[in-house]
């Protein structure tokens, strides 16, 4: 379990503390967009409290600059809160040793992870993490094989190939395998499908879902795609200007389309269609989950059509 307790973070803590006194006054005067973070804003995260439960699939949404990437870098101790605490399995990870231990538990996959490949062969690159973690060398073959099979890559065919000779989609899978090889209990993915074509995107998200169901890995997924989030996640955390805007089940988070629009986000497309119909006085019975999905929207519409509107 990863717990955030009143976490504040500033990239420039000295200035943040100094300007905090007159911050309120300044904020109200400034005219700026309602979303994102002003570049001179003192705090990248403000008073963030929530927890990631074991075995859950958590989504994180927010406009560019809302603090998503800053937030996830707190989860394995890359960044340390300026104020407040981050607990991984009950241990504060503020000190270096605790952070190093947390990195064995929490795997973090950055945006465009294929840009971080470096080794001469796929095998060496995937083995980099496990070796750093001190996993026994005699098991390395099976560790690498297992990680590559998890991402649907052929161990025998690719082990001695240079990662730079692979296609973009394959490179991303190798990078993902490099993190999975450390066997993290929690996997954090920052926009894992960014820049992929629709087919590769679907495949990748299916992979992520498989880690969740088959390996029982806790997943934290950052995404700009509300459809993906609504479809995949147990709960969603919405950030705005470094603060928690909403946190809960998809149905609860997407209940207010106006509030979402105000912070530069949208609601899932099926729900948006239902909302548009509602605006045209076509009231559909709300599904039991509280949120329309493409499937139940079609069903409801067909049923409503047959029974007469």
């Amino acid at each position: 379990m990863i717990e955030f307790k009143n976490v504040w973070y500033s990239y420039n803590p000295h200035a943040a503390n100094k300007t905090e006194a007159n911050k309120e006054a300044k904020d109200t005067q400034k005219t700026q967009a309602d979303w994102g973070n002003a570049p001179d804003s003192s705090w990248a995260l403000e008073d963030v409290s929530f927890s990631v439960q074991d075995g859950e699939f958590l989504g994180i949404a927010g406009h560019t600059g809302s603090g998503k990437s800053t937030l996830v870098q707190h989860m394995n101790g890359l960044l340390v809160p300026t104020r407040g605490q981050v607990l991984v399995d009950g241990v504060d990870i503020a000190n270096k040793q605790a952070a190093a231990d947390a990195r064995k538990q929490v795997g973090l996959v950055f945006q465009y992870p294929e840009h971080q490949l470096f080794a001469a062969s796929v095998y060496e690159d995937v083995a980099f993490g496990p070796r750093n973690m001190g996993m026994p060398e005699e098991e390395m073959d099976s560790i690498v094989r297992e990680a590559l099979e998890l991402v649907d890559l052929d161990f025998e065919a690719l082990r001695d190939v240079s990662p730079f000779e692979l296609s973009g989609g394959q490179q991303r899978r190798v990078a993902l395998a490099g993190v999975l090889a450390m066997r993290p209990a929690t996997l954090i993915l920052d926009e894992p499908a960014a820049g992929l074509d629709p087919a590769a995107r679907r495949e990748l998200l299916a992979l992520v879902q498989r880690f969740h169901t088959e390996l029982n890995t806790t997943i934290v997924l950052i995404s700009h795609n509300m459809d993906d989030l609504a479809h995949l996640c147990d709960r969603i955390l919405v950030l705005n200007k470094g603060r928690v805007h909403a946190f809960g089940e998809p149905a609860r988070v997407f209940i207010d389309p106006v509030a979402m629009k105000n912070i530069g986000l949208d609601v899932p497309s099926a729900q948006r269609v239902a909302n548009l119909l509602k605006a045209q006085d076509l009231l559909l019975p709300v599904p039991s989950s509280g949120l329309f999905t493409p499937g139940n929207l079609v069903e409801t519409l067909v049923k409503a059509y047959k029974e007469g509107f």
Partner: protein
Amino acid sequence: MAQSALFGRYWPGKSLVHKLDPRMKLTGVVIAMVAIFLAKSYAALGVAALFVAAFFLVARIPFGQAFKSIAPLLFIVLLTAFLNLFFVQSGEVYAQAGPFVISQGGIDSAIFLSIRLTLLLLCASLLTLTTTSIDLTDAFESMLGPFARFGFPAHEFAMVMGIALRFLPQFMDELGTIRAAQLSRGAHVSANPFHGGMQGLSSLMVPLFTSAFRHAETLSNGMDARCYHGGVGRTRLEPLAFSTRDLVAVVVLLSMVACVIATNILATL
């Protein structure tokens, strides 16, 4: 994010100094540096310091910012002071431990050189604080222009310099991300080769270089797409032009040199 640490990052403003012709500023910095080197006494250095302080006042750059911009290079000043303290030996001896001697001459030259170096750094940072990198490269190109007659690729040289300046912060950012990613995989990214350091180091440098090549390819495609064909026949939206402001600047800078020399002479009388 980590860009604030860069030496003399552009400090936007509309002051007189910002508006000077960049060629003037480039030459001006050289003149100011000559003045600082000419100073032979504390009094003369003080005069030079007054001028430098005045430049910063006119440029409306807060003193805190001025020192922050040279902070990363202050270690050079400290190192120089340290070396002078121990290796210049003259005058009264204050302390001695084996081969290390601290004497009056050592203390004098340590203090004198630190002030001089700090002033030089401040001058250089004033240039980059008040001049955008585009202006700076334009100035370079224009000043190297005469050499183009002898086959020196002035435009290309300036372009390469401009691109290098443009990508410095970008690579800093990317290096930060790569470092964070490899740290997440438990990398020991220290320079200690006995602690997985070599692989740790290559796990940073290889991705950085591939990214540099990727950027280079994208950039050259982008330049091709905009029909870039070198400097021949290219015109400017805002051509560089000298004005009265620049004349005033020349006068001020020359008077700085004159004042420093005068103080030097007065001190020897």
